[in-house]
């Protein structure tokens, strides 16, 4: 069946923008799927045809990303952010309410194709939750009044473009500024400094500053850049990882919206350092509202002669938008996604510095790392390394969320203790802090004097606070479901292991857990840690491991006393047969145990 004219026009315009190349597949699919639409079989076939890729590959990509849909969705596609902090802010009741107002059921299309309501992983608005996306556009600070408003707009079929702008307002709250956020960049200033240095000298400055990656792992940035510069290849690439998918993290959002020049400046000088003239910025789909601003920044810099093939440092940046997948934050999955494929992590080695984007030497760094690199040139390596600890130089942006009256972004020098952050956030009564999100560490009161640093508590930026009334078991359960949902399914230990972990904690939650399940959890965590292919699987057991260690009573009080109990009521499992046979004799029932 041929495409209708509107869809065909979208396809043609996507092909003009991205080119008919197989590695553009994801961006083309994103562009042909309207915000509220889906990718029909005809569209998939047309895309396969235009890009000369097998239909199976197109289907594979379309089914991998959660923001692409191969089934019809509502004209209004509502996705509630389902982070633990959204839940703490009451998202479940709001979702119920919206469903009731719209006669909808979660996960189904309702009202003759009018609306679909579902949940999605953390959308990065934890400082202003509960949050949702409507046709891909973010709305924060949900409350009953806003939900009523939204349901009226949907029922009146008002297109999202014409909804009141204040609904979509995203506020960035900075609570503490240090070296980085105090830096007021005159666009081009860091490049001017850089150009006085040779590429090797520039890398030397970054090394002297002691800059380490801000995405979580803390790899020394200068070593990464030097390795990329030394790798043979006709072209090199700089990739900015703005996928920020770790639940509880939103500091890159601030940088992308308020400090875009600093990011691009950092990418440009990385390009200068390694000899790359192409940059790619991979923005998570949840941050679509930042795209226009970023494009404007890029355009302004091109006009000012700071970016582009003819700039003093010939370097340009292309913006890619993701499609809803946490694992794509992992650097090799990110590269796969940039190349238009399913976001499945690659085997490492070889590492991206030698075989990255399209197999060329590539530097992948976090948003904040590029900002910090620009800062090093502006402020000088010495001023930079004066902040921080022996092995963690400079400052770190923390995304403070959860039970605090003062959520927002806090920039602290590395070495700050958890207690100091809690004091600043007015949350001294916290019982637990999740440092670095679900793949990080959960610590309890006894450890609040530990330091945020690579040598003690590393973090990509999440700092989620749990107050005295919180049930830490529910926190771990929510994270277990997060990993089960986000596992890419490539390797069995993680695909099966994360689902089993979620099943076992659900069993405990339902009151059927015993000591047997606690042992089972430990065993699964060990398998995940040992057998998984990438970092997602390696850390998927962390929330349960940490909370079993520190909050055992939260598990114990849910255990059934028996040595073992099924996860369901056995007598109820006979009910259908009882109903069909009309029997109710003693043999038609099962008791609790033998």
């Amino acid at each position, binding site marked *: 069946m041929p495409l209708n004219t509107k869809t065909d026009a979208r396809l043609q315009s996507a092909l003009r923008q991205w080119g008919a190349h197989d590695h553009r597949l994801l961006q083309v699919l994103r562009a042909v799927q309207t915000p509220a639409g889906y990718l029909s079989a005809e569209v998939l076939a047309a895309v396969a045809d235009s890009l000369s890729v097998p239909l199976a590959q197109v289907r594979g990509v379309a089914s991998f990303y959660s923001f692409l849909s191969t089934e019809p969705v509502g004209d209004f596609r509502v996705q509630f952010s389902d982070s633990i902090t959204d839940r703490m802010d009451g998202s479940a009741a709001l979702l119920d309410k919206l469903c009731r107002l719209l006669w909808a059921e979660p996960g189904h299309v309702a009202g003759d194709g009018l609306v679909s309501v579902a949940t999605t992983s953390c959308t990065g608005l934890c400082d202003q939750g509960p949050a949702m996306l409507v046709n891909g556009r973010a709305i924060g600070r949900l409350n009953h009044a806003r939900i009523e408003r939204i349901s009226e707009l949907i029922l009146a079929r008002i297109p999202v473009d014409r909804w009141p702008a204040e609904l979509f307002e995203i506020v960035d709250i900075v609570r503490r500024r240090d070296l980085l956020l105090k830096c007021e960049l005159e666009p081009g200033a860091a490049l001017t400094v850089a150009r006085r240095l040779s590429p090797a000298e520039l890398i030397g400055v970054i090394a002297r500053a002691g800059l380490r990656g801000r995405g979580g792992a803390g790899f020394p940035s200068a070593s990464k850049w030097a390795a990329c510069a030394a790798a043979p290849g006709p072209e090199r690439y700089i990739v900015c990882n703005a996928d920020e998918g770790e639940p509880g993290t939103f500091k890159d959002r601030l940088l992308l919206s308020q400090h875009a020049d600093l990011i691009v400046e950092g990418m440009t000088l990385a390009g200068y350092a390694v000899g790359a003239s192409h940059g790619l910025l991979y923005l998570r789909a949840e941050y679509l509202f930042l795209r226009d601003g970023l494009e404007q920044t890029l355009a302004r810099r091109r006009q000012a002669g700071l970016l582009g093939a003819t700039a003093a440092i010939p370097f340009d940046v292309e913006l890619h938008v993701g499609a809803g997948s946490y694992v794509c934050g992992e650097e090799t999955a990110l590269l796969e996604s940039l190349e238009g494929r399913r976001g499945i992590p690659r085997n490492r080695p070889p590492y991206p510095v030698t075989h990255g984007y399209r197999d060329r030497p590539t530097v992948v760094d976090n948003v904040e790392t590029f900002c910090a690199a620009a800062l090093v040139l502006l402020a000088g390596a010495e001023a930079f390394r004066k902040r921080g600890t022996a092995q963690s130089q400079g400052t770190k942006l923390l995304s403070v969320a959860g039970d605090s009256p003062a959520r927002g972004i806090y920039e602290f020098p590395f070495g700050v203790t958890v207690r100091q952050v809690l004091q600043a956030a007015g949350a001294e009564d916290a019982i637990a802090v999740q440092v670095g999100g679900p793949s990080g560490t959960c610590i309890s009161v006894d450890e609040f004097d530990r330091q945020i640093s690579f040598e003690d508590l590393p973090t990509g930026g999440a700092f989620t606070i749990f107050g005295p009334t919180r049930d830490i078991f529910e926190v771990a359960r929510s994270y277990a479901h997060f990993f089960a949902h986000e596992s890419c399914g490539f390797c069995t230990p993680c695909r099966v292991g994360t689902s089993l972990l979620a099943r076992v904690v659900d069993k405990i939650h339902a009151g059927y857990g015993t000591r*047997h399940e606690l042992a089972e959890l430990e065993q699964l965590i060990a398998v995940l840690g040992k057998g998984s292919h990438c970092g997602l699987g390696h850390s998927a057991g962390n929330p349960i491991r940490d909370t079993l260690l520190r909050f055992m009573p939260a598990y114990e009080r849910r255990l059934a006393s028996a*040595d*073992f109990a*099924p*996860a369901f009521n*056995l007598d109820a*499992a*006979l*009910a*259908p*047969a*009882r*109903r*069909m*046979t*009309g*029997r109710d*004799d003693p*043999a*038609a*029932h*099962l008791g609790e*145990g*033998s």
Partner: protein
Amino acid sequence: MSEPNPPRVRLATTSLAGCFGCHMSFLDIDEKLFPLLERVEFDRSPLTDIKNCGPCDVGLIEGGVCNAENVHVLREFRANCKVLIALGACAITGGLPAQRNHLDLGLCLQEVYLTEPSLARGGIPNDPELPLPLDKVYPLHEIVHIDYFIPGCPPSAEAIWKVLSDLLAGHTPYLAEPLIRYD
């Protein structure tokens, strides 16, 4: 004074929702049955016709759990066996019988006994002598705690022998990859 013979290990086996293929594979250990019988005496098993399981050291169960009677037998084994082993794919995952799990049991019974012409006049059997089917076929470990699993459909005689001989020798049973590799 000579050492008294070590007490014989008591072994019980049964088939729940299985096809006896796993038991056949067990018998395939062939000549090793003789040394085994020197060390083992059978309790409840299709090989002995003992009707109820008494206190045992090891229980081997093939097949998943599809009805109320299976639950009773499984619980009897768990209550009496120090070590309980799930033998074969059906015991471990539900296996072939679990193919019915994506069907609604009520609709199934209705179609077979009420609307399908051949049996329709009989009605749905409701004799209390018949065990009621569960809504789904469950693997053993979802009903009781299981200590060891021997995968395969059926597991090879070598794999079964390895687990039993490990237990007799006092080792934690271990199946190296060749014994659980099927392609």
